[in-house]
């Protein structure tokens, strides 16, 4: 087994090379403790196994970024046999900066000149032999995007792995040399890395290396001071200068550029894309396109995938112990619950697949940094980054989106602080799934002003998101360092189909593996919270009475028909009822005539006696069929009432009652609390949740009268609920991805508690004000909206107290 590490600068096409070498069997993991992806693959070549790890792209091996630390740690700790340095052939001088540092490690290196096609187009010629000679490494040409060079690279790796002695590559660091020698002596550890490299890094002040090698920090400080005094040189600048000088020399010896000052394709495109007038329309068009294709288009796709998922569910239900009228075996209940949860989550896969594919295309093409370039000035004021655009849009800007892919899209944001701020902000955007809720409430309480209200709702989220971002970065995140904005604008190039598909599949798989599993685990807990302690005996008795009545009703009707002997026993009645329900469920999913026919045949074959009663021909059969239908309705009704009763008495229900002292300020009585809580968990919560809770509470008083004596629900209540809904977190899955992307349970807890608290406080505030000041529902919403807008704008305009960057002495 040969261990190979792929290293190179960002935008050098390293991932494409990795894809080319590794095929599809890539393994994605995490470097311990951080959210950086670790890509590895096992490649067989000429009878040997090669374990290739794709290190994160780094410009250098300094200290400041997470990627650099990860790459460095990997090379230090793991035993790498060969380093493959992927380099952008049309940008050799800058790429050599990293190359030198890799060569200094003292391990066998293979230099891959990638993007040879672009170099050719720019009429750049590279003297491969000379380069190879001067650097003392094998140099291989490749064009990853066209799948050229795989064999050559593997052959070079094979040769390098068998190299006996690596002649140490040395740059003459002039004045630093004696100091390096001094430090080399101080290194106590054994390592496959060359001591010289360690000494260089130590002198440069790399805390990680200093710690690992056991060199005293004091010594470093002394040496640095001495250098500064003697030569008036900064160690950092000194090394950088020397490296670049050497790179220059090499460059001039090996590279000929026939055309400089090129007006190439990238420049031409940028003239449009980054044009002062066209930039925003282009940006808008791109975002609109992504949104349409993924959210809207993906949604369409689910119309086809859903029936498949639902059939699987029905099939599973067929295997479970059957319900006995109103008694549903707990195991059945539980399995149905879990299956529903699972398919609800899986239903999102088509949308995400398209979305991740589009994001991959956008990343590969090179448009992302340009997006950041255009919008950075606005986002910066709120503690966000230009690259926060896409995540926020995906979360739902103006129209409904989904926070799950939005948060997952924060991966690429360079600035750690802005990245966290974005992760915590995306959930405030317009969640798609909240729309039916809004529609219903608005339809009931604001039928004439629906458009206006929807406008308020869909635009207020952006103001809230920006304000929260600013708030968070000013307080909770203020201790995090903000990174420099400096960003490379890569040349535009066409993405590879393979690369895009791989990326999309990997991310979808990540969703399934990490998000779905955790949400399902939570679903189990919720089930318990809702099932127990269960329905009190007395109430259960009442339900049983209703059940008995319905059954005897059915019995009477069935007796009048000629098919009575089929259903004279109770078990038979249950069987018929279940058959009817199952058939109906399946039937709902089939649309074509052929499918219906084959469904009928299948059911007939399995239930020759009872099925004719489900699809009746003939008067008698139709009578029983009608009775069964009625029975089905009644059983559903009783079961729903039972469910509500169960929820109301469950642990969750008790919690709702306990919350009342607090929630009453929002206008939420305990019934609304229970409804909120139970609906957060019990998706199959019956329609009459509130109604039946009321009815039970008022001992049979009709809902109207009950409420009349209670005080009606007014538009103000509705707005309070809307405000709470706008601010509260979208779904459990979102919380899970927040944890994944931030790598911290603390932030996940914060992302759950803070919005809920904010929602409660804000809706309480506005509800109280509206009640005392006599506002109408629309006014309450309007003032909420204006406040949010005002806060956002004020925060944006407020001056920062200190400048971001200080000048050195």
């Amino acid at each position, binding site marked *: 087994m040969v261990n190979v590490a792929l290293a190179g600068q960002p935008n050098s096409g390293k991932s494409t090379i990795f894809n080319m070498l590794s095929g599809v069997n890539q393994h994605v993991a995490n470097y311990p403790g951080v959210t950086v992806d670790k890509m590895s693959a096992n490649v067989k070549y000429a009878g040997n196994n090669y374990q290739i790890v794709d290190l994160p792209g780094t410009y250098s091996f300094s200290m400041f970024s997470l990627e650099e630390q990860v790459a460095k740690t990997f090379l230090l700790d793991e035993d790498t046999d060969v380093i493959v340095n992927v380099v952008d052939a049309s940008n050799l001088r*800058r790429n050599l900066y990293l190359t030198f540092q890799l060569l200094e490690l003292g391990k066998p290196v293979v230099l891959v000149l990638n993007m040879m096609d672009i170099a050719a187009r720019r009429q750049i010629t590279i003297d491969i032999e000379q380069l190879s000679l001067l650097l003392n490494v094998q140099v291989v040409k490749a064009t990853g995007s066209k799948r050229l060079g795989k064999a050559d690279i593997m052959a070079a790796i094979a040769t390098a792995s068998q190299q006996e002695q690596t002649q140490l590559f040395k740059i003459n660091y002039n004045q630093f040399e004696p100091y390096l020698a001094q430090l080399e002596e101080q290194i106590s550890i054994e390592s496959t890395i060359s001591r010289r490299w360690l000494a260089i890094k130590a002198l440069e002040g790399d805390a990680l290396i200093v710690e690992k090698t056991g060199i005293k920090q004091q010594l470093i400080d002394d040496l640095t001071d001495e250098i500064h005094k003697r030569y008036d040189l900064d160690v950092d600048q000194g090394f950088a200068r020397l490296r670049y000088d050497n790179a220059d020399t090499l460059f001039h010896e090996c590279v000929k550029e026939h055309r400089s000052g090129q007006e190439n394709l990238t420049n031409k495109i940028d003239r449009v894309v980054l044009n002062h007038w066209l930039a925003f329309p282009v940006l808008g068009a791109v975002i609109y396109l992504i949104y349409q294709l993924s959210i809207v288009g993906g949604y369409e796709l689910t119309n086809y995938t859903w029936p498949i998922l639902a059939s699987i569910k029905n099939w599973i239900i067929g295997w479970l112990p059957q319900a006995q009228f109103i008694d549903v075996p707990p195991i059945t209940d539980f399995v149905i619950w879990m299956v529903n949860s699972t398919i609800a989550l899986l239903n999102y896969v088509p949308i995400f697949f398209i979305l991740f594919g589009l994001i991959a295309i956008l990343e590969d093409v090179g448009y992302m940094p340009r997006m950041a370039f255009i919008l950075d000035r606005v986002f910066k004021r709120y503690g966000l980054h230009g690259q926060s655009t896409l995540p926020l849009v995906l979360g739902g800007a103006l129209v409904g989106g989904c926070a799950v892919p939005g948060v997952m899209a924060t991966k690429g944001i360079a600035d750690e602080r802005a990245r966290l701020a974005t992760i915590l902000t995306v959930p405030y955007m317009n969640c798609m799934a909240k729309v039916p809720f809004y529609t219903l409430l608005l339809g009931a309480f604001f039928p004439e002003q629906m458009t206006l209200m929807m406008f308020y709702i869909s635009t207020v989220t952006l103001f809230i998101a920006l304000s929260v971002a600013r708030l968070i970065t000013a307080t909770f995140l203020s201790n995090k360092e903000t990174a420099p904005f400096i960003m490379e604008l890569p040349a535009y190039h066409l993405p590879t189909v393979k690369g895009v598909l791989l990326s999309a599949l990997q991310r979808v798989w990540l969703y399934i593996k990490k998000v779905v599993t955790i949400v399902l685990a939570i679903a189990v807990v919720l089930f318990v919270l809702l099932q127990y302690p269960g329905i009190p005996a007395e109430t259960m008795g009442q339900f049983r009475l209703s059940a008995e009545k319905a059954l005897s009703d059915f019995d009477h009707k069935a007796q009048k028909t000629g098919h009575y002997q089929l259903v004279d026993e109770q078990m038979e009645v249950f069987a018929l009822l279940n058959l009817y329900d199952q058939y109906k469920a399946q039937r709902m999913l089939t649309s074509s005539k052929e499918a219906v026919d084959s469904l009928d045949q299948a059911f007939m074959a399995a239930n020759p006696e009872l099925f004719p009663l489900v699809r009746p021909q003939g008067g008698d059969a139709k009578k029983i069929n009608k009775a069964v239908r009625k029975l089905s309705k009644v059983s559903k009704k009783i079961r729903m009432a039972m469910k509500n009763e169960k929820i109301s008495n469950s642990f969750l229900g008790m919690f709702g009652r306990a919350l009342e002292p607090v929630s009453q300020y929002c206008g939420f009585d305990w019934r609304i609390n229970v409804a909120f809580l139970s609906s957060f968990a019990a998706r199959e919560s019956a329609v009459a949740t509130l109604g039946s809770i009321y009815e039970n509470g008022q001992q049979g008083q009709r809902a109207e009268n009950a409420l009349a004596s209670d005080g009606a629900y007014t538009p103000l209540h509705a707005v309070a609920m809307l405000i709470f809904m706008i601010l509260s977190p979208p779904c459990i899955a979102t919380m899970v991805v927040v944890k994944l992307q931030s790598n911290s349970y603390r932030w996940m807890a914060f992302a759950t508690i803070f919005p809920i608290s904010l929602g409660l406080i804000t809706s309480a505030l506005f509800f109280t004000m509206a009640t005392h000041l006599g506002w109408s529902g629309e006014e309450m919403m309007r003032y909420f909206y204006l406040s949010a807008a005002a806060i956002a704008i004020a925060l944006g305009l407020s001056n920062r107290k200190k400048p971001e960057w200080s000048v050195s002495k």
Partner: protein
Amino acid sequence: MPTSIQQPSLADLITGQQGVIQDCLAQGTLKLKLLNMGFIPGTKVTMIRNAPLRDPIEISIQNYLLTLRRSEAKLIMVKYHG
């Protein structure tokens, strides 16, 4: 308007103008990053454009394109070229 009377900075270049880097006054993380990206005294840079909202700016250095905020560009001293 130049940042100081004596030395213009990268932020002072207008579109299309070239400059040669003289000095880098940044500290810490920013300095490291600038060094890594090749902002060494003696290197030629060209100002390509402003962002639509005027900040950040795009420059070309050696053979590639970089963007940086004006606040960062102000710390890089240049000499006008050509």
